[in-house]
């Protein structure tokens, strides 16, 4: 079973089984420069990852719990930590974004919930 676990200083949430596709996008922080001969050189800073996942349907409680992680990063001033053991992603600080909320039933269920997790570093507190 492939689980997605989010953690912040408030709580830990294990979300329902991941659906496919789970998209991983490599982010290359670099610049190519061209010399007078037309050859390229790359100044490379780092490589990061971004994961995009869509749950077709989430219950209201699961959605609210997920949404709370998104909101807390802007009130606690710290990013949540993402863990997906299956892909050896363990407590990676991520900048989290979430798409529009589409409620599809009277129980508050939400459909097509897309979250984006952009790998980043947690700035050291007190530095």
């Amino acid at each position, binding site marked *: 079973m492939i689980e997605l676990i989010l953690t912040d200083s408030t709580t830990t949430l294990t979300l329902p089984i991941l659906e496919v596709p789970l998209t991983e996008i490599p982010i290359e*922080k*670099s*610049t190519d*420069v*061209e*010399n*007078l*001969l037309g*050859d*390229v*050189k*790359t*100044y*490379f*800073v780092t490589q990061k990852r971004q994961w995009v996942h869509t749950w077709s349907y989430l219950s209201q409680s699961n959605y609210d719990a997920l949404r709370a992680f998104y909101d807390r990063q802007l009130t606690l*001033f710290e990013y949540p930590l993402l863990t997906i053991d299956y892909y050896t992603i363990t407590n990676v600080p991520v900048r989290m974004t979430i798409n529009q909320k589409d409620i599809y039933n009277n129980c508050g269920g939400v459909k097509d919930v897309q979250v984006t997790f952009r790998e980043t*570093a947690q*700035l*050291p507190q*007190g*530095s």
Partner: protein
Amino acid sequence: MQLTTTEFDTLRDGNVTPISWAYRMSFDKAYDDNVSFFTLDSSVLDGIDVLAPDNNDPIQQWDKYTYAPYTDRVIYMEWSRELEFPFSVSSAMADIQLENTDNYFTPNSGSLIDQYILPKRPIRLLAGFNGLNIPQFVGITEKSPVIEDHKTATFHALDFLSELYTMPITETISMQDATTDEVLVEIFTQFGMLPSQYTLDTGINVIPFVFFDPDTNAGGIFRDLMEAEMGNLWLDETGQIRFNNRYNTVNAAVYTFDKTNVLDIRGNGDTNIINAVKINADIRELQVFQPVYTLTTGGTAFIIEPNSSKVFNISLTDPCTTVTTPTLGLSSVTSWFTALKTSDSTASTATITGVSLKTNSYTIFFSNPNVFQVTIDAMEVWGTPAKVIDKGIRYKEINQPSIDKYGEQVLVIDNNFIQSTSQCDSLAIPILQSYSIYAGQLELEVHVNPALQLNDILYIDVDDYVGEYRLIRIQNRLGDNNFTQKLTVVDTEIFNFFQLDSSLLDGPDVLGI
């Protein structure tokens, strides 16, 4: 050029170059007591060892501050340094923008460093490849940070030498036959620095008389010294103060730029031709022992109260190298004073408990041991003054072929650190040698080499630009996933000036003195 490792050079020259940097600040300006002295061959570059030992003067303590890392917050860093033409008292500057979404650098925000968000915070900036960072800048912030929309904090910083420029010297400087470096050492010593903090060429210019009173601005002294020397004074990337004399001989290029590591190259139109040198200076000459001050009865006479002391300040017309302490009783060969009982003008006594000579001022500490008032009614102070002896030097040297070709381009030097015609020759001839021919300046954007330093000789081989060039400006920027470096270089002919006991007669060295 800073020394680097083979690994560093390999990363620099590779197809894919992993750039890295480090940025540190000391907001509380606390000292690290664990820092020890830097020992060549045993200390680690960028480690905590410093190049200077401890003492109580904070201005030279840049190595000893406890710096906290802010590397992860850096959005961009820009730093630059340059040499001015034809002499330079230069300073480097840096701009650093940091991430501030948590208001960490915002004043009055309740930040942990709130009370320390102030001007003049020490910073260190390093850059390199794959964690092999080398020093780039050591300085202090000029003002509090500029906060933009609570998202970023931008600091502007100047190097530590700039701070020295604004400071007054604290004690009189009085020297004879001093070279430029000797005067610099005297000033640096006043600021609490030790020889390990500076690397100085031996000055070519010898100054017969050096006189500076306390509160004289050090920056003005540095500028006059460098002008008379045609030298360069700057703080390098590691925090070392450096002085190059006018000869500053370099034998070979330290690095090559060609089409493989140049992104852009262009001439900037500056040529900086000098084909005429005018030097104006007042000449002082040390005189024989003679009266330098006279206190006359009824004029400047003064009273000392019973069992009291009095400080008497004398303003001397000319600076003196020596002054003899006055003794009681008239004399025709040395300093003297006379004292009278004020009430009846009968001869009396007073003692001098101390004197202080500060070039143009002489202070005497009198004491009256009597139970009645005493008047110091006459006094003559003898010393050896350095007087302006004639109308001074009005010197001109030209290079006629250059004038014929480019028109007269005059450099005027008004500087009393030049005291003889031979000194003028020594100064003017190398200037004309170096600057009377066309020497184009180039601006290059290159594959970054953080080890480059001002005054490095570079060999450039790009189309019509072939030969040795001197590096006179370095501009670096690290940000937006990129590391850029722009250089300004000036065409340079490498020659050694003739030096006694080391150059061969009829050899290739140029006779400069």
